[in-house]
């Protein structure tokens, strides 16, 4: 239990709670939705031996790209790392263990952990290379693959708006994996551009109810990675 009125945190304190060797989900598809400020703080604090779960590897000089480059990441569960040549190089050199999943299965495996189940049964990829290593089962006369859920110790997510209880609203294509990950980790740390008083968000428009959020950290759009990139365009 995280008490409602103890969620607003400094970025230092929030990230300091992450131990070496943690299994960490990181929101974002490319840059949108990536919690750049939280990741930069994680880089600064020096946690190592990390397992990261993220749709992609960002680019070499931003987001989890920086953590990979600094050798902090032992293992990456992902869908596509084509925009990060360093990550591909680290993988090919055997310094970074990479598990690749089809994007929709990765999303669904995370969502399944967030829903509190063991796994799901799917026909995706049955006759392809990814079927190797999956356990299959017959149901109703057809073959299905068992896809176990993927959970994490910590989720780092980026929201557009939060309230002090930890309710989150995402924006645009920055939604992506964030609400799924917020539900699938034991603890969720959210960064948001703005943290409002409870009651300021429309109940129907809240994507992640506060029950799934442990800490919220306010980040400045101008000094965050997104902000820096905005000024560079």
């Amino acid at each position, binding site marked *: *239990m995280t*008490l*409602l*009125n*103890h969620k607003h945190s400094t970025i230092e304190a929030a990230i300091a709670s992450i131990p070496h060797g943690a299994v960490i989900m990181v929101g974002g598809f490319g840059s949108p939705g990536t919690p750049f400020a939280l990741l930069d703080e994680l880089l600064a604090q020096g946690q190592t031996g990390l397992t990261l779960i993220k749709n992609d590897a960002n680019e070499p000089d931003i987001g989890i790209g920086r953590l990979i480059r600094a050798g902090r990441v032992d293992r990456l569960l992902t869908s596509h790392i084509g925009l990060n040549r360093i990550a591909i190089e680290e993988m090919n050199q055997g310094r970074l263990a990479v598990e690749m999943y089809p994007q929709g299965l990765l999303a669904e495996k995370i969502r399944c952990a*967030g*829903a*509190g*189940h063991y796994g799901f049964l799917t026909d995706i990829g049955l006759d392809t290379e990814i079927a190797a290593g999956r356990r299959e089962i017959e149901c109703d006369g057809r073959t299905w693959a068992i896809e176990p859920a993927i959970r994490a110790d910590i989720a780092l997510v980026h929201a557009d708006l939060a*309230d*002090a*209880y930890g*309710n989150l609203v995402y924006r645009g294509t920055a939604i992506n994996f964030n609400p799924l990950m917020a*539900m699938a980790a034991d603890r969720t740390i959210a960064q948001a551009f703005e943290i409002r*008083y*409870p*009651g300021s*968000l429309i*109940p*129907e428009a*809240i994507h992640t*109810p*506060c*029950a*799934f959020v442990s800490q919220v950290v306010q980040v400045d759009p101008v000094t965050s990675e997104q902000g820096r990139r905005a000024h560079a365009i």
Partner: protein
Amino acid sequence: MPSDQERILARAAREVVAGQIVNLGIGLPTRLFHYLPEDMEVLIHSENGVLGCQPLASGREADLEMIDSGGAYIGTRPGASVFDSALSFAMIRRSRVDITFMGAFEVDQAGNLANWKIPGKFSPGIGGAMELAQKVDTLVVLCSHNDKHGNPKILRHCRLPLTAPRCVSRIITEKAVMQVTAAGLEVIDIAEGLEVAALRAATEAELIIDESRLGRF
């Protein structure tokens, strides 16, 4: 002199800690939210898809699309959210609800709970009770100590189909507050004016009672 139900609810309200997420089962537990301090920072979860219920202010027109799981019209407090049924039960199965209060037909000294079906008599469906009972860390049963025929409801072993096995933390009746422990059912508080012998007589379960530590309510 409070009624039995008022006594149960007033005592139950003391189980809630500020900052918690609280689910209230259909029936008696639903009324608990009238017993919590108005300014207490808790979020009431109702499994039909709302976090942050509060009683509808008297004289306020009901919003027809805002009900709790018992069907009563409700209001919401600042910080409330509404969501679909899959997310609502994800919250339950992920143990994000801190405490739930439920009624019981039977509850036993191992913490087994039966509150959804009386074979041949009553079987309207289990609703959301099974997942709440199985997954919420703290389940407090609120019920009368005996049924309307005077038979004990606090048993050695449940006889009715279970809602979930070994799920109950605490039982609050008009006669006692009992904690389910590894050693058995330990009486924490006993009702004002009730003798220990009378409590034992009204109860089928074995009760562990240390009179020197017994509270009154």
